[in-house]
């Protein structure tokens, strides 16, 4: 337990940096992220604008710092919604079985049949294109994948003898589910949720690209990336820096997720 794995170290470093930047960005940025400065339009990285300026002369570094918190909150909330909903549905579906299972499987399969982004688009039309709408829409769009993974895991766990042992001990079904089944779903869930962070960051940028993301001028990494597209030839850094931020954050989250999964698995703790 004393030594941190390389995964935990690198992942923790990246995610820690992400969190610090996001917190700092919401109280202080080098420039006003919304301030227009037409003189600095599409200015390259320099001492004045460390990461350059965008098509309206807004400081990219400042916008990235502010965007970190917006992107972070959007993806965190999305993943939370999808994980909670999906785990609940998957667990009920797998554990109760029978007609409940059939109906839930039919519904999740129907939802899975739509591409996630299309489903989110439809839902956004209902919820409206703002932060809450995006979180809700993406959260619901990712729920079926979580539900499916959890259901499969629950189905295989249900056959294990320790579940029978829990019944023999006199535990109620709910207790058995909460105490013995769900904790054993954690490994596949951590892997799934960490990759879901990546999907949301990317989907959010795709939605922004379609004009349905977090509405401008508020910056997110996704809509900054989307807004940079027309200027790709003139000002490459506009796309590179948000893209780099997304990649590094994702790498960090995935590494940390792997480390977390190992840490939560008693088998990886070694013999005492």
């Amino acid at each position, binding site marked *: 337990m004393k030594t941190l794995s390389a995964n935990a170290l690198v992942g923790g470093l990246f995610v820690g940096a992400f969190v610090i930047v996001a917190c700092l960005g919401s109280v202080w940025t080098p420039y006003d992220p919304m301030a227009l400065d037409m003189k600095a339009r599409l200015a390259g990285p320099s001492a004045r604008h460390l990461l350059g300026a965008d098509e309206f002369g807004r400081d990219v570094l400042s916008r990235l710092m502010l965007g970190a918190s917006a992107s972070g909150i959007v993806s965190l909330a999305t993943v939370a919604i999808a994980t909670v909903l999906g785990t609940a549905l998957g667990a009920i579906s797998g554990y109760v079985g029978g007609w409940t299972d059939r109906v839930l499987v039919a519904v999740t399969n129907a939802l899975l049949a739509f591409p996630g982004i299309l489903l989110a688009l439809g839902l956004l039309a209902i919820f409206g294109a703002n932060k809450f709408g995006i979180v809700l829409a993406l959260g619901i769009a990712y729920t079926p994948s979580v539900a499916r993974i959890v259901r499969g895991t629950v189905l295989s766990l249900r056959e*294990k*003898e*320790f579940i*029978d*042992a*829990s*019944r*023999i*001990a*006199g*535990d109620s079904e709910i207790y058995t589910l909460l105490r*013995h089944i769900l*904790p*054993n779903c954690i490994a596949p869930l951590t892997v799934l949720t960490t990759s879901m962070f990546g999907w949301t960051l990317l989907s959010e940028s795709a939605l922004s690209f379609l004009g349905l993301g977090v509405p401008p001028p508020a910056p997110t990494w996704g809509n900054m990336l989307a807004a940079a597209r027309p200027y790709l030839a003139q000002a490459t850094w506009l796309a590179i820096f948000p893209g780099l931020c997304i990649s590094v954050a994702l790498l960090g989250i995935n590494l940390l997720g792997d480390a977390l999964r190992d840490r939560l698995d*008693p*088998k990886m*703790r070694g*013999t*005492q």
Partner: protein
Amino acid sequence: MTQLPLLTVEQLVLGTSAAMAPPVVDCVSLTLRAGERIGIVGESGSGKSMLMRAVIGLLPPGIVRRGGCVRFAGRDMSGLAPDDLRKLRGKSIGLIFQEPMTSLNPALTIGRQMEEGLALHTTMDASARQSAILAMLKRVGIADPDAAVRAFPHEFSGGMRQRIMIASVMLLEPALLIADEPTTALDAVVQRDVLELLHALVEEKGTAMVLISHDMAMVAQYTDRVLVMQKGVCVEEGTTAELLGMPRHDYTRKLLSALPRRAPARAVAPNAPLASVRNMKLAYGSGTGAKPVLHGIDLDIHPGEIVALVGGSGSGKTTLGRIIAGLLQPDEGTLTFRGQVVNRKSSGFADYRANCQMVFQDPYSSLDPRMRIGDIVAAPLRHEKSMRAADRRARVDEVLAEVGLAPQFAERFPHQLSGGQRQRAAIARALARRPDLVIADEAVSALDLTVKAQILTLLSKLQREQGFACLFISHDLGVVEQIADRVVVMHKGVIEEQGSRDEIFDRPSSAYTRKLLSAVPMLTPAAGGGIDLVWRAA
């Protein structure tokens, strides 16, 4: 005998490539002449399978040959190119694995799979191959070979699949057959039939055979010579008769003494039954596709007795056990406990739960991998409302001590324990609430021979001390003979016969019971300190 040996293994050392790690197989030598049959006996981790994998060049990744050599028919196997080795496998050296459920490809018909080897290694044309396959399937006892070649593996039972596996291996008439635990996954009667078949085929074709098993009695019956392996080292080698009658090494003696043998009969006072089952019926599925499993079972369990429920796979014994444990709802029939009818809806069910506990077959899946042993054992105590936290901890320590686990095991996770230790923990959990009835479903079947003997001894000791009644479900009659007071024989969902252990083992009345008994040897002490095995007539 100036004939050249078929297979020689000289001073073979196998291990991981890390020089510091202890070898998996350490300096083992053996010689096998054409037509000779030898057995390799050892418990899990003894290196017995690894030794034979080295012979055919199929070592698992990470294990390498560190020294010694393997010579087959005069050729050094380590010098052979992968292609030459491949030509040898199947044609000259046949291999039969433990798990018939997974060693046949589920996507290919039996005919296709059997033909593969013939097409690869012989010059026969298609029609000759076909007739050879049909003849072989008939020989291994497949009732309708024409239908079988077009059938898929899932259409056959485990025993039948193993017959098919034997047929496809023997079809190529290899000079050497390696059978690695060929019948471990099968029940006693099927096991015996399959081994008899294997033995007869090997005799017919003059094939040399290496039989790998943890079951000393089984190996003894079918081999001329035996190697005993322990922790990668060959501790004793000799003719089968010598080894059984006059074992020289302590470990061999330990293995022999671990073979189950009959304990003196106990007198159980005639009492009102503790638990009774009347007219129990259950079918899986419903409507016209329903498959009846139990056809009206009547069974009494008296206080303080060990009742063994025996039968082959599909006899319904496990289903009956699960009904009595309250895990399954029967279609019809009643379960009474101390004169009170119990079912999931009755008011006394919580009390019955406290009094009827269960020990499962697989100690690897019966303990929650995320919980510490102490919490696992304490789990049933959650429902003892009168106990305080301190009482519960004291009870956990108490039962852990009873099953022979030191208090520090409470802090460990299941994966840190050996199979035997896990089964002890499972027994501790079952005894935590001081039940009157313990159902043990194949509780020792998954364990190694010596561990099995220890757990059996523990179970009967605890039963004597605490006086609970025990329903001991098993297909292994040797184990039953050692532990049971009374035996109930089940076959195809009905009770064939029941009686005291001595009655059933010495004077069986039903033909099915006699067939079951013919699969287990009677042990008698031999003059040299070993044992004699006597087989009952079917």
